[in-house]
């Protein structure tokens, strides 16, 4: 069973720890005194173990995506702490954060909008290197070629623009770009939702291979429990803007504790019912 067995056997250390994280939006109202507060998520506690895949599931809503963005440092949380490799990221200065971006990367749900349509594949993959000022033009080109190979994109398409690729290929391109900086943590926000079933499986396999190759840790945001059951090591359930349970996948699916988790699992169509449905 490969990585999963290993996970059970060893005691994995935590790569990232989230403590009491909240994100609130405040809207000032024109004539009332008290401002209007919307909370995206409240008091979130999570542990992400090195080398594992954590899935965050829950009802559809902006909460999970916003959490994911905060983990990737794309948004600032209102309160709480983010510990990465033993350091509190929220205390970092801008310069220190610049370096941290190399460690944590983000994959968007829709690869088409995440890629600049005016740039070629090579340029897209090379951009993070350019921003972080790594290497020369030649070394960037070589690295881009390398990464394209890793994700399974043909070399001859390195001068093509995103629109010339298929949906699945675009997501591969986004993944290649995310790997350019050799990150430790990859956060995927519903990265499979926009793909068809075949592509989903292919990308999942790719991600699995990449994890071994590059010693990656994944956090998947997903609403698709069926998929989650296939790839996740640990699952955290988000409900009413909070994390209600975090457990190894097998445990969660067999012995769910929280009522919301049970409700979520109950709503999930089981494999048998799908097959039976098709036979009718």
């Amino acid at each position, binding site marked *: 069973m490969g990585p999963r067995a290993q996970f059970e056997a060893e005691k994995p250390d935590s790569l990232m720890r989230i403590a009491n994280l909240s994100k609130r939006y405040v809207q000032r109202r024109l004539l009332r005194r008290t401002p209007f507060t919307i909370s995206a998520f409240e008091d979130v506690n999570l542990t992400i173990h090195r080398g594992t895949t954590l899935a965050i599931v829950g009802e559809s809503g902006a909460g999970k995506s916003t959490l994911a963005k905060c983990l*990737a*440092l*794309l948004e600032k949380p209102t309160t709480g702490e983010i510990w990465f490799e033993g350091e509190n990221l929220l205390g970092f200065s801008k310069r220190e*954060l*610049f*370096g941290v*971006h*190399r460690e944590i*990367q*983000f994959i*968007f749900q*829709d690869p088409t*909008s*995440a*890629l*600049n*349509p*005016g740039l070629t594949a090579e340029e897209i993959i090379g*951009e*993070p290197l350019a*921003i*972080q000022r790594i290497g020369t033009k030649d070394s960037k080109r070589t690295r881009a070629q390398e990464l394209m190979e890793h994700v399974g994109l043909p070399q001859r398409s390195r001068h093509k623009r995103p629109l010339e690729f298929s949906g699945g290929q675009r997501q591969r391109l*986004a993944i290649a*770009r995310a790997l350019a*900086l050799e990150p430790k943590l990859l956060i995927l926000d519903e990265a499979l939702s926009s793909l068809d079933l075949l592509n989903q499986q292919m990308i999942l396999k790719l991600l699995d291979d990449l994890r071994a190759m590059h010693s990656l840790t994944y956090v998947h945001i997903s609403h698709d429990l069926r998929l989650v059951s296939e790839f996740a090591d640990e699952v955290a359930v988000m409900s009413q803007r909070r994390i209600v349970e975090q457990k190894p996948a097998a445990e969660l699916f067999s012995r769910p504790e929280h009522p919301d988790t049970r409700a979520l699992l109950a709503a999930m169509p089981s494999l048998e019912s799908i097959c039976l449905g098709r036979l009718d």
Partner: protein
Amino acid sequence: MNSRRKLWGALILLAAFHGLILFAGFFAPYGFAVQDRDMSFAPPTRLHFTDAQGKFHLRPFVYGLKDDPANPGAYAADTTHMYPLRFFVQGSPYKVAGLFESHLHFFGVASDGRLFLMGTDGYGRDQLSRFLYGGQISLLAGLLAAALSVALGILVGSLAGFYGGWIDELLMRGSEIFLALPWLYLLFAVRAALPLHIAEWQVFLLLVAVMGVIGWARPARLIRGVVLSAKERKFVVAARGFGASDAHLLFKHVLPQTYGVVLTQIALLIPQYVLAEVTLSFLGLGVGEPMASWGTLLSSLQQYYILSSYWWMFLPALLLIPLFLAYYTTADALQERLKSVSL
């Protein structure tokens, strides 16, 4: 694609027009200040291919001009003197790009002949030459002012759109003030605040500066709109995730999305500013004599007898029509292409 052909057609026309004006010294048969008092208000010289004897000549020629005994003040063709049209002739000296002197003209006739393809004005100055030289002033003023307005618009629009918050509020309120002022009146007012008789080039620069600075508001608002939507694009957020600085985001991702709007604005502003310069000069408030600006060429039309008797004095204004048409077509075609490209 229809819009593609339109765009290229318009651009070629513009290039030709600007090329002619840029090398006015070469293409104009005479200097802009050359007077010929005997030939005051001469109508456009006709080119002939067959002479009085009915013989056909491959090379066109013009007749000499002499006073018409039947109509005092008018001219008649002197068929005894024929002046063939030659190309690449030697003529009056001019400076190429203000650097070196040349005597070479694209076309002309022998020095005792007269070639007034657009007629002459009251001082006997060739209108065609003055039109070409005048373009250097009017067109340049329009181009520079448009560039200035758009540059300011990009600056303000990107700052306001990108950073939002109070910067945005402040800049947009400011732009409203500028939009609330009727700009032609404002232009005149600022012109009024300046001394009436200052050096030519100073008037020119001042005009350009004022027009350019007054006109930043509309481009700024349009560019701000593009920037607002551009900065929300996911690939901009992604670049932030690599630690990109604001400058990188602006220059590499956001501003490239404004190119379409910028080009369209330029294409629309140039004719507007050219017309403003022409209006000012027409009223005597712009660049004055003896410098030819298109406005100065037209200013004599304010006198009724010139207006009704000498039709060729209208020609400089008529020639502006294809020029403006070309600019507007360019702006149109650009907008069409923009609509089809944006996702």
